[in-house]
């Protein structure tokens, strides 16, 4: 039996208003996130993959209400997060945290590493005794393989990989059970990426964390995620087990995205499907299926019908009206 989800997202929508005119009035909407639904189960890593502008970062931030959703529900253990008052929201963030792509820009450069990692504890009024707090921070740093020597250092003295370790320690400070990791390895050197991916995986195992792992790098995602969701222009295109998504994608966009991933093995060169053009503007998305303008399987019906997520296998869904492709 599958355990109840940690997080259940239903018809999540984030539309930004476009205002124009001398007396500003709404002339349209940027549909950053449009009717997205998924669940994350305990101890599960859900990968969220898509290109820039697909809305993946907005989804991650909306889940923690760092960005307010326009509509939809976000149930955390059965409680709708979107309606929480400030006090309840703060208690929710004890359980749900975020790791950013570039920790440097999320650190106050004047603060010591100790203060950076202790900040969530202060916000949550946890560990008020200075000595105990310091011990807790040192233990957190140890969890991410940084020695106590780093307590007094400042962000600029650290390398990119070390800073990301501090960012992870800060997210772990309040003992969360769910973490949004937004491109946690994208700004790191190749030789450091593997260190951080291993660390996240260890933490997930030992702490029993559920993770939303946001990335544009499908190879890293295949490695760490249990399931993968593919987003394009604010909409969910396909979701399923990491293995099925990578080995037998059923949505034309997933197929094209995978074929574009450059393989380091020169003998493994696959047939590359080169998508033409760019992502359309989310302020003016195509009618019907939003991917149809770049899809090599598009038929006239794709412009009329808004495809719904339908099952194509066990736990595997795609939003495409053409069952037979790819």
């Amino acid at each position, binding site marked *: 039996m599958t355990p109840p989800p940690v997080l259940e997202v239903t018809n999540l929508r984030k539309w930004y208003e476009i205002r124009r005119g001398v007396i500003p009035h709404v002339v349209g909407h940027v549909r950053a996130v449009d009717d997205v639904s998924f669940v994350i189960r305990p101890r599960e890593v859900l990968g969220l993959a898509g290109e820039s502008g697909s809305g993946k970062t907005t989804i991650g931030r909306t889940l923690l209400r760092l960005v307010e959703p326009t509509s939809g529900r976000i149930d955390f253990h059965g409680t709708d997060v979107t309606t929480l008052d400030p006090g309840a929201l703060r208690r929710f963030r004890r359980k749900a945290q975020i790791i950013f792509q570039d920790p440097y820009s999320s650190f106050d450069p004047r603060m010591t590493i100790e203060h950076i990692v202790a900040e969530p504890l202060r916000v949550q009024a946890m560990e008020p005794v200075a000595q105990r707090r310091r011990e807790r921070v040192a233990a957190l740093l140890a969890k991410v393989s940084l020695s106590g020597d780093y307590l007094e250092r400042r962000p600029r003295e650290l390398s990119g990989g070390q800073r990301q370790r501090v960012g992870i320690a800060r997210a772990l400070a309040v003992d969360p059970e769910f973490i949004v990791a937004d491109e946690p390895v994208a700004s790191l050197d190749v030789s450091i990426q593997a260190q951080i991916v291993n660390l996240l995986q260890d933490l997930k195992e030992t702490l029993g964390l559920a993770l939303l792992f946001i990335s544009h790098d499908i190879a890293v995602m295949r490695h760490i995620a249990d399931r993968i969701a593919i987003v394009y222009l604010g909409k969910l295109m396909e979701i399923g087990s990491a*293995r099925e998504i990578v080995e037998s994608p059923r949505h034309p966009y997933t197929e094209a995205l995978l074929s574009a991933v450059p393989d380091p093995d020169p003998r493994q060169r696959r047939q590359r499907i080169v998508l033409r053009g760019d992502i359309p503007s989310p302020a003016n998305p195509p009618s019907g299926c939003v991917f149809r303008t770049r899809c090599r399987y598009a038929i006239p019906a794709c412009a009329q019908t808004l495809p719904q997520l339908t099952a194509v296998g066990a736990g595997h869904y795609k939003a495409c009206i053409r069952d037979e492709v790819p």
Partner: protein
Amino acid sequence: MRSLLEVRDLHARFSDRARSVVAVNGVSFDLAPGETVALVGESGCGKSTTGLALMGLASAAHLAGSVTLTFKSGERRNLVELSDRAMQDVRGNEVAMIFQEPMSSLNPVHTVGWQIREAIVRHQSVTRATADDTALGLLNQLGFADGQRCMHSYPHQLSGGMRQRVMIAIALSCRPSLLIADEPTTALDVTVQAQILELLKRLQAETGMAILFITHNFGVVAGIAQRTMVMYAGQIVEDGAVDEVFHSPRMPYTRALLDSLPHLGRVAPGARLPAIPGQVPNPAALPPGCAFHPRCRHALPGLCDVQAPSLEESADQRLVRCLRWKEIAAGSAS
């Protein structure tokens, strides 16, 4: 065949009163006409400084060594010795460069057409109308559906992929024989990256230019280059055909880097990635001996931390900078 570019013992040193940093430490290589060579390495390894030095753009650095380029006229000159004035004629005409972030290379207050025309008029004595025709032709060749409209667009009106194509149009406007591409697809999405790589390959087939492709992404290397040079701490540590370097890397750094990549279908998902311990050394404080030895699992105390390896050429035309590569390849090294 005579080489197009001969780089010999290139050094680039940045210094101020307090300290001196050798960013490029004795780099030598040849580039044949029409060849694509990938220069691959992590940040701080000196790959971008090498590219800038070839372009005469590493103005803050003290350069030593020689960079001999065969001009279109057949003349051979050492670019390191050329005056700034003479280098201006070389840039664009003989060698051109494209960068990671096209937005910072394009002028935001001029149209795309103005900027391509500027490059053409700078090097060729043609009228404005002819230059415009050339510019439009280039944009069409680069896959712009509406080249005319693009000519009148400002950089901010274009997407990242379109901007990079505009940069390529400017770079190719005077038909250089060498294109230096410094991480041109790093800021782009994978689907757009695939478009740009296909485009560069097609343009190379059409123009016969050589490409020095600087990247940190081994996947991109495999997709575009025939030969690859791996850089670490300012030096080339391995050089060979892409296929061979990928399948039998000799320098432990190359091997470790390739092993640490989670590529689709190689490492079992969920298993630990074989990460390289430690971090890239600070170029101002390089370790003695082999610069990679503190992170190398084959490092032998008393040897690798004492003796600096030279770039050794083997019979199969591959170069490797490692004191123990033969033992490691034979499987006899611990």
